[in-house]
Each structure stands twice: as C-alpha cells, then as structure tokens.
C-alpha cells in the first residue's frame, strides 16, 4: 500500500529552489565572465554575478543557521555504510528493476551516496566557492577582507575549478532526479513536499 509522506517542509522547498536558481544562474553568468560565451555582456554579467553571489552567501549562512537549530544537519553526516550497495544499485540494480537499497524516510532522506556527495557539496565545495567569490570580489580591498592578496590569479583559477566541480554535480543531480519510482517523482516531491512511499 502506498502512502503520501511529507518529506520537505515549505522552508526546505523554498531554500532548495532558491539555491537551485542561484547556483544555475551563477554558473551560466560565471562562465560568461570566464569568456566561454557572451549573453548579457561582460559588465551586466559581472553585476548580476556579484549580487547573485552575495545572495547565495546570505542564503547559505541562513541555511546553516536553520540546519543547526532544527538538527537537520544530522541528515548530512556521511558514512561508509551502504555506499557500496548504493553504488552497485546505480551500476546494475537500477537496470534490472531492483528495489532501492536504502529506505527513504523523513528522518533519513538521503541515501549513503547522497550523504557523501551532498556533504562534499554543502560542507566543502559551496562554502569554498563562496569564500573564493568574496576574495575575488574584494581582493583589492584588503582593509575590508583583512588580508592582502598579492595576485588575483590563484583565487580566479580556484574559483573556476570549483565552478567546474559544482556544475558537474548539478548535471548529475538533475539526472538522478529521474531515478525515483517514476521519472518525475523526485521533482514533484521537491515541489509539493510529498512523496509516495511503500507502507510497511
């Protein structure tokens, strides 16, 4: 028997989609600034990128605050348990119609692979990218930053590197939304908050 369960509160959904919008637009505009293509023109792109980036810093700090007081940070603590099974599921089980190896509950929303990937994303890549972005933006204002950067070069190159990594994550992430019990089940879940689970 199937049952609709609330997985994502209104705040989580808003946060997720706002962050999705910010990261996607930062990536699109960021690669324009990088010189990969031209859409808005350099000056407009830079202004948008700065405000979007500052917004993401604000959102990220707020979200960390939310994680801490709600205790939801526990969802992201990674471990090796179940990683192998989950990996094997994506390599072979998924093609055979095997069931998901991990049960998804509101208390444990992330499978072991997600925990590792999301932990790397939200605890390493995003904060690193935000710090690099702030250094990039204010590198010639040492009074404001509190440190004197000799050159923009290392900051810019690392910022590009992390941008490639986060963009890679986004591609994989979007694809993996299709791996629910229907193609759009996960996306619907993040829109409405509810997902169907097998009642046991």
């Amino acid at each position, binding site marked *: 028997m199937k049952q609709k369960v609330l997985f994502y509160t*209104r705040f989580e959904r808003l946060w997720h989609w706002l962050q999705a919008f910010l990261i996607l637009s930062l990536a699109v505009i960021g690669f324009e600034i990088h010189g990969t293509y031209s859409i808005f023109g350099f000056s407009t792109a830079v202004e948008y990128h700065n405000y979007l980036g500052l917004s993401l810093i*604000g959102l990220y700090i707020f979200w960390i605050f939310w994680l801490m007081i709600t205790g939801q940070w526990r969802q992201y603590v990674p471990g090796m348990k179940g990683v192998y099974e989950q990996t094997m599921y994506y390599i072979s089980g998924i093609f055979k119609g095997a069931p998901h190896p991990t049960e998804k509950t509101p208390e444990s929303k992330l499978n072991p692979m997600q925990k590792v990937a999301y932990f790397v994303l939200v605890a390493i890549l995003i904060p690193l990218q935000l710090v690099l972005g702030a250094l990039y933006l204010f590198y010639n204002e040492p009074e404001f930053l509190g440190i004197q950067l000799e050159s923009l070069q290392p900051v810019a190159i690392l910022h590009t590197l992390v*941008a490639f990594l986060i963009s890679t994550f986004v591609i994989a992430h979007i694809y993996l939304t299709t791996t629910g019990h229907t193609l759009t089940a996960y996306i619907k879940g993040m829109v409405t908050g509810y997902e169907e689970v097998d009642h046991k």
Partner: protein
Amino acid sequence: MLHKMLHQIFAVFIIVVMAAFSNVIAQDKISNYDLNSLVHKHVPMVDHSQFDVLKKDFKTPQEVTETCLSCHNKAHEGLMKTSHWLWTETNTQSKRGEHKYGKYNSVNNFCISIQGNWARCTSCHAGYGYENNEFDFTNKSNIDCLVCHDQSGTYKKFPTKAGYPVTEETVFPENNVKFLPPDYNKIAQSVGIPKRQNCGACHYSGGGGNNVKHGDLEKALNKTTKKVDVHMGIDGANMRCAECHTTENHNITGQLYIVATDNEDRVSCTDCHEPNIHNNPILNRHTETIACQTCHIPEYAKVNPTKMSWDWSKAGENRKPSEIEKFHGKEPTYNKKKGEFTFGLNVKPDYVFFNGTAEQVHFGDKIDPTKPVVMNQLNGSYLDGKSKIIPVKVFTGKQIYDSELNTFIAPKLFGQPGTGAYWAEFDWGKASESGMKAAGLPYSGKYGFVSTVAYWRINHMVSPKDAAVSCNECHVPEGGRLAKLESEGLYIPGRDRNATLDSIGYFLLIATFFGVLGHGLLRIVFASKRK
C-alpha cells in the same frame, strides 16, 4: 513556533535580496561633473596697453625682455631655474644616480639630438640665441617672455634662427610659410597669462610638425570640441593648459619620461578629480591598478595624424613624388632628408604597467644593436604594488649608431653645405663626424642603423564619460585592448584562463553529460526488455 519564526526571517531575507537587485538597476546613473564650475576665470589686474614703457620703439626682442623685467623685476629668477630655460634638470635613476639631463644632452628617435643642430631645435627655446653649447644661461636679457605671454597671436619665432623672430619678411622654405617681423608694441601690450595657443606653439609641433611627436597634443586643440578633449572643448570648460599644469615661479608642472625620469612635478587627474568618483563600486576598484587615462582616452590623434614610426636609414633616396604614398592623401610617407614614416589617425593606445619611474638610454651608453633599443623603459609590473596600467603611444624608429663603439650617434642634420650637415650633403659619415665633434663625443668612424622604441604617455584628448572604454573592450578572451599586456601574476577576468584547467573542466562537464545520458538510455533499454 520555531518554524513560523524561521519563515518570517526567511521572508526578510528575500526582501533584502530583492532590494539588492533593485540597487543594481539604480546604479546605472552616473555622477554628473560640471566642468564649468571648476574653471578659474582669470580677470587681468592690469592693462599693459596703458604702460608708456611698452610704447617705445623696440629694436631687438631683448629690449622687450629688459622692459618686462623693469617692472617684473623678480620674474627671471624663477624662470631661469626651469627646464623651459635650462633644457636640463637634475634626475635620479636607480642605475645611473643623480645626473643632469634634458633636451640639452638627450637622445630620442625623432630628430635624434640638438647637438650640432641647435639653431633649428632652439626655435622652441624660451630664449634668444641658443646656437651652441656656449649659450649663456645666466643672461636674463635673452629670456623670451613673448612666446608664452603674447595674446595678439602674431608673435612667431623663426624655425631656424636659434629662437629669434625674423627682422625682415622671410619665407621658411620647408613649408612656404611667410614670417613677418613682430610688431613688438602690439605684442608687448597684449601680454597675459598663456593660452593653449602659447603652449601649443612649441608643444604641438615637436618632432618637426603638427602632432608628430605626442599624438595627443596638436593645433586642433586650440579650437576643439568636448568630443575631442573634454577639458579643452570650447563647447565645454575651454580650459587653458596651465589650469591643470599648475605653475609656481614659472615652474610649470608636467614632464615627459623621454627627458625627465624623476617622478616629481607631475600632473595627475586626481589633482582635481576624486579617484573614486564612479557610482559603480566595481569601477572604483579599478582605479587602484588602472590610470584614469586608460579608460577615458580611448583614442589619440583624433583630428590630425601622428607619426608612429620613423626609419632614418631610408633617407637620402631620390624618390619621385609619384612614388611617395601619402597617409590619408595628406602626409607624405617619405622625405629625402628624414627617411620613411608611418602615421596613425584615431589610434588606440598601447598599454603598459607603470610605477612612475623610468630608465633612459643616453649618449655614450652601450646599446645592443641586435634588438630594438628601448629609449625610455617605463618601469612597472602588476606585482610591485605601485604600478597602474597606463595608455602609451609606442613610437618605433631606426636611427644611426656607432657600430664599433655600440653607442648612439648625434648626427649633424641641420646646417649649410660644407658643415657636414646631412640635410645639405646627404652623407651620414660626415654628419656623424660633425655632429659627434659638436657634441664632444667619441666616434669610431663606423656607423650603422639600429631599431629603437620609445614610449610616450597619452594624457590629453580625454573623451566625455559616455565615450570611455567599456568593460568588454578589455575583458575578452582575444583581441581586447589589453591582449598584449603581460606581467607576472596578472589575471584579467574574461581575458585570462588556465588552459589546462579549462580543458579538464570542459571534459568533465561533457563526460558527465554523456555519462548520465548513456545511463538513462540503458535504463530505457533494460526497462523495455523487462516488459
């Protein structure tokens, strides 16, 4: 309860973000600077036409000077210490130490040197009779007050008379311009503070013609529009040179790194303008590493052409006028006396890092003839913490040097036949011998031609703010204004990238995209098999 509170804080956050974005749009307005409000309107306190001493019959220009000094009896003291009079001043360079340098003893890649050519070159000396190295720089009667202070517009120094005007009607054969003896009464009674015409009489025509040397200083500035020069345009502030080139005791600020390497007595945009004048904070951050001129002088030689290169080695050929190409149908690209030239009109400057100090090559310095000799190396780098990117005119030349001693030669160019003057005899050997003798410098008797490069700062012809260089003229991967600018550690967003990282990064993105696409296709294939 907790969730409700979080939602409220979140709503505030959204509002802050929206406000930040509306701020982006609001920042489009640019501050308005009213130039007219800055100009000091000079009101003369005396009418020189009422002075009886200026109504007497002047026989020589020195008599005029003596009359000036009879009232302005301290004026000469300051003037005689300036480079306008001495054509030299004390410079200190890191490698050379303190030394006297100026037009007096310098070498350049235009007309090369004044040694042996004094009477021609010193037509721009603020004095009379500077025709050899024996000129008495202590004789105040030889000061030329009029060339700077004449407001009648009729006072002209003859091009080849060591700073003197003519005493009878004379035609200058080079350009068939007629020179009349000055009406000293009219001129002396007209005097006032120098206008653009006064400074321009010499500074527009360095190198032997209008706009030849500077590229951003030429006669069109006498009567121009804001579009050409926002400060001098008669439809705008109509400023005099000395309004920026502030002057004390006749010492006028502003110098060239061709002749003066000390970073003093300079004129800066920020003498008047706030560096952080832009409304956009990103533009303000640029001012730490980029000079105002870099963005605000998008082009020089906006009206008349400027010389971009000069090859003396081609001089002396008898080319038919029909064989000589003319730049824009006007400027001949060959002259038997001078060699071959190239010109530029509406030129985009080159750009270099500059920290305010420079090196120079002097007569007697060893040069390496196997590569272009940089006449005035502008010091600076991205990492030195003092440099800014500045716009320059890069002037290239090919000129005579002593191929045994590896030093520059000061050839005698100007003079009568029999003096060894190149322009009369077309013999580089004789010209070298005669010029080096006049300069008191050693010459081996063997000469060759060496390529040279000189940097001229571009500081004038500032455009109105809406014509300033835009972001994407530099922040582009290829073909931008700063495409050639290299300096260790320099990273210009949009222009620079780490090629290896980019290759790996794009590969990663594409591989992931096709990876998940393949995974998806396999799922479809297996799902259809299961049915």
